[in-house]
């Protein structure tokens, strides 16, 4: 099959990536807005066009367990979830990461309850930040497909051997159709050889104890730190994988994407599908003469410190738009980026904005507000406290809803 082009949703793009990766096993559990992925795969498997087995588990907790156990037996595994489902299986994320099983899991981001909602923000995937899973976050459907292939290469590399998340936004990407190039299977096979597990397997002739307990902090520390070192090594492996991907498929994905950042003085930092809104805002403000650019976070674990610093070095001001909130602290990436820049000599001013929670739109007006805040900060040298992006119209609408709910108070 040669390369073809089709209009695909984010979900079906992922499914194509999984099909081309010739995955053996797909344990499933449905949750909106991820379900289209597992339905598409189930259809292909039951139609016999994909030589794999899929099984419906009784919960995400069981699903992640089955995924990890199958990977520990030596097959290539894929699974997917979203939001509440991710949290329901949370215990097992840390567990299977400790098993050092290199399977790929897609998270389709969706705000966390409560209040229960459907649209995206990144508190779900960021809750898994410290689990040991690597994380790749996608902006487009093409990127989602390509990232699945890259994810297997990265995870299965003997220097890494950790599970990996590929993340995309619910609705905004999962259900958006875009033209996507579906790679040729022979080219994929050249890029991604079959999985051969040399470290974890179950077979009669070689009994093996996996996932066993340790007693005492020294063994525990040893294994935990080993995971950390493996994750850090993934930064080197990522370079090799993305170069080779580019050579074969002609598409290049860095750990962080710099969009018009080269000559920029002011930078927006964003991730996932809302970056597209940010890029449009950059183009608009550039027309007005402001030298602005956008840094999109793509590889989030391991954290690409060096690549990030290279882009942000010497800039006047940087505004991090966190589509998440660490309640009681603020934006999660803001803290991480501030940490990364702390020792830099020539570091930019760093501003924090929380936006797009629960899929709330970020309007042109809000971007303008951010650009002005950056200029003002540079001119005065003063950083204002972190802000929630929220328009006056949205505020008025909320007041109206509150009055319907009987929650208006006498001033």
């Amino acid at each position, binding site marked *: 099959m040669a390369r073809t082009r089709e209009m695909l949703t984010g979900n079906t793009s992922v499914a194509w990536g999984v099909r081309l990766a010739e995955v*053996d096993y797909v344990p499933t559990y449905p949750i909106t807005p991820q379900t289209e992925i597992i339905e598409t795969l189930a259809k292909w498997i039951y139609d016999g066009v994909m030589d794999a087995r899929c099984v419906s588990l009784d919960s995400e907790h069981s699903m992640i*367990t089955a995924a*990890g*156990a199958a990977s520990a037996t030596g097959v290539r595994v894929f699974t997917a979830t979203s939001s509440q489902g991710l949290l329901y299986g949370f215990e097992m994320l840390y567990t299977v990461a400790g098993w050092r099983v290199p399977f790929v899991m897609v998270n389709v981001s969706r705000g966390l309850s409560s209040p229960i909602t459907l649209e995206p923000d990144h508190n779900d995937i960021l809750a898994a930040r410290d689990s040991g899973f690597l994380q790749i976050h996608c902006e487009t459907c093409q990127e989602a497909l390509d990232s699945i292939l890259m994810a297997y290469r990265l995870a299965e590399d003997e220097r890494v051997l950790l599970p990996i998340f590929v993340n995309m936004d619910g609705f905004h990407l999962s259900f958006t159709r875009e033209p996507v190039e579906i790679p040729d299977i022979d080219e994929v096979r050249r890029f991604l050889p079959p999985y051969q597990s040399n470290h974890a397997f179950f077979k009669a002739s070689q*009994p093996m104890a996996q*996932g*066993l*307990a340790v007693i005492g902090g020294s063994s525990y520390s040893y294994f935990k730190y080993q995971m950390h070192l493996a994750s850090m090594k993934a930064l080197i492996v990522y370079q090799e994988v993305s170069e080779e991907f580019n050579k074969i498929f002609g598409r290049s994905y860095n750990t962080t994407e710099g969009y018009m950042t080269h000559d920029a003085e002011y930078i927006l930092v964003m991730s996932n599908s809302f970056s597209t809104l940010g890029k449009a805002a950059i183009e608009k403000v550039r027309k007005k003469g402001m030298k602005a650019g956008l840094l999109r976070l793509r590889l989030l674990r391991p954290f690409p410190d060096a690549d990030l610093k290279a882009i942000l070095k010497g800039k006047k001001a940087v505004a991090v738009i966190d589509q998440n909130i660490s309640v009681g602290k603020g934006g999660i990436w803001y803290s991480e980026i501030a940490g990364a820049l702390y020792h830099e000599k020539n570091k930019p001013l760093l501003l924090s904005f929380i936006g797009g929670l629960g899929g709330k739109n970020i309007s042109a007006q809000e971007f303008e507000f951010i650009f002005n805040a950056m200029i003002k900060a540079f001119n005065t040298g003063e950083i204002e406290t972190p802000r929630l992006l929220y328009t006056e119209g949205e505020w008025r609408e909320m007041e109206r809803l509150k009055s319907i709910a009987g929650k208006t108070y006498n001033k």
Partner: protein
Amino acid sequence: MNMTLIKSIKDLPAEENLFPGTPTCAGCGGLLALRHCLKALGKKTVIVNAAGCFTLLSVYPFTPFQNSWLYTAMACAPAGAQGIRDALDILIKKRRLDPKEDLKVMVLTGDGVAYDIGLASTSGALHRNLDFYYICSDNEAYGNTGFQSSGATPFASRTGTTPVGKTSVAGSILPKKNLFEIWRSHNPPYLATISPSHPVDLINKFTKAETYKGPKLFINLSPCPAGWSTDPAHSARLAKLAVDTGIWSLKEAIYGDVRHTVIPRKFKPVEAYLKEQGRFAHLFKPVRQEDVIRKIQEMVDQYWNGIQKKDFIPA
């Protein structure tokens, strides 16, 4: 059906797959039964474990087993078994694994997992007709955390969370869940209760189970000196007393059809079993709680009356 059933303990398989020197408590009735189970299952078995007393059998870098082992978490060992079973089937089908390398998959948990937190994942595995073994070592409480009440705790047992006090003279006021019937409602091909005091019955049940594809489930009543406050030297005798008093019925269900495999000729009074155990000591001292003891006896009698009405053939 071509099966060789054994007649006496002299016929027990000599093979050992669980070696001594484990960190379980002295006299652990669960460990004793596990040793027999592994004689029956053999070396080519991968044990999928959930959190419990047996989790500490394999502590890096040691394991007492000839078998492979995977510790999962508390609630999901049957899902781990699903992943391994499916992966082995896929590897064999795709000719990436020699069929000779195939393994039996066995889940090993305590009663806290089987009766409570792992009930949903087990139900899922049964529903999917997963080809696996499940051994529940039922010591009637959360033993590894120091003996707190579980769904398996019987009426009147003292546990860490059902203490005996001024307002609760009986200890646990809830009856034991009937896991046998919960599992049986899924219609698995093979389901049995076992006891470390009846190794011949135990081995034969595994021999029968092996002829079926699908879930093969075993509940072992595991005398627990640490939690039951009993003499470690008496575990096998206590297990036998549980059978002789009718408190623990040895039975099997093949596709739901129940048969009792051991029927005491003359039932001993439940008191003989209760009075030996610290967890029931409050029924006898400082004052004898006649009504509670009678209630336990009635529950046992009621069970066996129901049984005797049916036409059953002891195997």
